């Protein structure tokens, strides 16, 4: 007993379709958070930003503390963390259609107070679980963007 298709009224003329496209191209500046992406690209390192007053470390970083409106300072973070929540994506957007299935997870990197979204590379995507310890792996070729790294189970010997 599957999808019952509703009968819909037919228009009294034949609709006419054309191909079209909307596009914009960028040289996008990361602005104040440029140091974060430069560190990923050039040093394969994760930087957080810390508000000394609120004792809060942001990752994703922000150069202003949203709680007290004071500037934050850059701090180096480790590359391990814990999964807070996660999902396996089986049906994706046209850009990622061919890459399914893959895992998206919110990870609390050690030393950070906030969660970072990242992919976790697993043999079986159904193994992703909250509570998993994971570590970041940086790709050899990096452009300075989030896709430059991903996570694997902390116990994994290599990927």
């Amino acid at each position, binding site marked *: 007993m599957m*999808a*019952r298709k509703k009968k819909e009224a037919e228009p009294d003329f034949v609709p006419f379709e054309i191909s079209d496209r909307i596009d914009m191209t960028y040289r996008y500046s990361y602005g104040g958070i440029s140091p974060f992406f430069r560190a990923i690209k050039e040093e394969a390192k994760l930087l957080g930003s810390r508000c000394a007053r609120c004792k809060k470390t942001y990752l994703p970083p922000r150069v202003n503390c949203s709680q007290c409106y004071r500037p934050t300072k850059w701090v180096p973070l480790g590359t391990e963390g814990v999964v*807070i*929540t996660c*999902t396996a994506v*089986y*049906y994706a957007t046209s850009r990622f259609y061919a890459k399914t299935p893959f895992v998206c997870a*919110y990870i609390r990197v050690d030393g950070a107070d906030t969660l*970072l979204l*990242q992919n976790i590379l697993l043999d079986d995507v159904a193994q992703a679980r909250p509570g998993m310890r994971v570590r970041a792996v940086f790709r050899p070729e990096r452009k300075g963007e989030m896709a430059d790294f991903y996570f694997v189970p902390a116990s994994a010997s290599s990927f």
Partner: protein
Amino acid sequence: MSRRVAILGYGTTPFRARWIDRTYYELAFDAAKAALKDAGLSHDQIESAVYGIYNDLFERQFMPDVYVHDYLGLGLKPSLRVTTGGATGGAAVHTGFAQIASGLYDIVLVLGVEKCSDSFNPELKSSTPEVLKGIIYSADMTFEAPLGLTPAASYALPTVAHMEKYGSPTELQMAKVSVKNHKNAFNNPYAQRPERITVEDVLQSKKICHPFKFYDNCLYSEGASALILVSERFAKRAKRPVAWITGLGASTDMAFTGNRADYADFGSSIAAGRAAYKMAKIKNPRKELDFAELHDAFTSAEILSYEAFGFCKPGEGGALIDAGVTEMEGDLPVNPSGGLIGCGHAVGATGVMQVGEAALQVTRRAGKQQVKGAQQGLVQSIGGPATSWTFAFVIKGE
């Protein structure tokens, strides 16, 4: 509140997967014409228009509202557009309410419209993945969109966090929401997808994004819905009972969602619900509400919303559907219209449609989907990353 606001008219097009024979402004016209007829007014009497349209890429037109305004023959009258993701329709109602309550205008058209299915990916020969891409430009383009995030994932991540925290909802409980809303849609002549399905159909349908299967999703729709909001003076001239917006709440949670203290609950719905209940003087929503139209973009969203709006305690939303409380026969029916799963999700139109359906209920004009004795209902309009935005409304009869 200085001035009361009534819903004098409501009109909607059917929600469909695609309206190939209508442009977005032609759809908007159909909805506006129906709402004006329902209100017994001519378009010349509209004093201001608020348009809710989510995504310019869907319409293949930036600033689409300005063309709708012309097409509706409203040239030289005031208009503006609001856009807040899936909550766009709710934001439009909120803005129309404020325009009347402020004393600026007495008769305001609130119109939501969306047309997404012109999007098409030639390589995949498919529309949906291209629509999803258009939505994901709304995810944080620096930190999250480049990782393949999808709209379903944006709901799945808090759902999994909620399951981790409370042990619910189960996939079976979620499936029951799907069965209920598909079934309710049979009573709604404008619904896109009424279906008789079983929980097994849902559980066995194609995996989309853990824990969601095909039947846990709403489908994207095209459609337009319109309301005529009026001040008390004009409401009193109506020849039939009207609906009143007696409670209104809004909240926007953190959209860099990793910044939230707790990821497992619908924070913006909790806050918006409290504000709406306070304004409507509702103390015990479970008892005082007769029905609710909730934003079931995914089945779990409806269950988490039961909790957020105090229909039950946190973590007990799954038990509520198990007990049948939110079925049409239960004592707090949820989504008599079929909701986004059964009626459809024509993004900018959705919140407007939900408020309109609630207005039909409290004026006892809801036909086959009428909830017996409906006097007061809740409407929820949500959108954004992990339901960042919520607009909530209490709609009451006379």
